[in-house]
């Protein structure tokens, strides 16, 4: 699976202006709606599902990264939105560190394999210190997209 096949280019946010986990997730879901990938009618239900999942345990997986996610019947394939929070956000992460990089994932309801392969693809790249560093230095959505294309081409 390639990052550029699952990330929604038009929804990328490089300067999240959120003071809480909920606000950040709301902006990212809103980005997918604005990009036409989810409907206004589904937006609140998707947001609520992601926040409910966070209540079960933070998706802040360490090294400044978080992967908030849910499964939802309205999507046909994996949708991912990438966002950067330059100041760092308290996400109650497993390692206690602030989060700077977020990959929000919405997967089809009934395809757990696709969901796991999506998370595998994202975390395979996030494991790389270089990738995280270059991502955090990205100023525009175009910069982020170019980086995703580069790492996809090298995989």
């Amino acid at each position, binding site marked *: 699976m390639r990052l550029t096949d699952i990330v929604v280019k038009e929804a990328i946010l490089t300067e999240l202006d959120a003071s809480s986990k909920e606000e950040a997730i709301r902006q990212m879901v809103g980005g997918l709606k604005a990009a036409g990938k989810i409907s206004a009618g589904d937006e609140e239900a998707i947001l609520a599902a992601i926040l409910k999942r966070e209540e079960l*345990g933070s998706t802040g*997986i360490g090294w400044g990264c978080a992967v908030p996610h849910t499964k939802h019947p309205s999507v046909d394939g994996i949708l991912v939105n990438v966002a950067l929070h330059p100041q760092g956000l308290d996400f109650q992460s497993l390692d206690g560190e602030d989060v700077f990089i977020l990959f929000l994932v919405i997967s089809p309801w009934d395809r757990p394999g696709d969901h796991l392969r999506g998370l595998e693809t994202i975390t395979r790249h996030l494991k790389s210190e270089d990738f995280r560093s270059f991502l955090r230095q990205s100023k525009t959505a175009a910069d982020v997209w170019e980086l995703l294309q580069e790492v996809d081409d090298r995989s």
Partner: protein
Amino acid sequence: MSVSMGKSQTETRSVELCLEQGLHLRVCSLLVSIVTPFDGSVKISHQDRTADATSMFELLQLVALKGAVLEIEANGNDPTSVIDQIEEVLSGKREY
């Protein structure tokens, strides 16, 4: 199978994954919390991939679906106890 090497022991066990959603992020997080206090190392393998079970990033690389057989190898003080706890999670006997 358990092999004693001085104070440290190595034990390996094959466990079938019985979780409907596979080895998803919340399960990986639970495994990390079980393994981190263990005095030793734990590796979990699926097909040709092996993960250090203290790393979320590595566990998520396993992409194990329901029905997959995972190989667990623990090396350290009382590996049976930590493998028992891992098996309890993977076999769906432990709520989380």
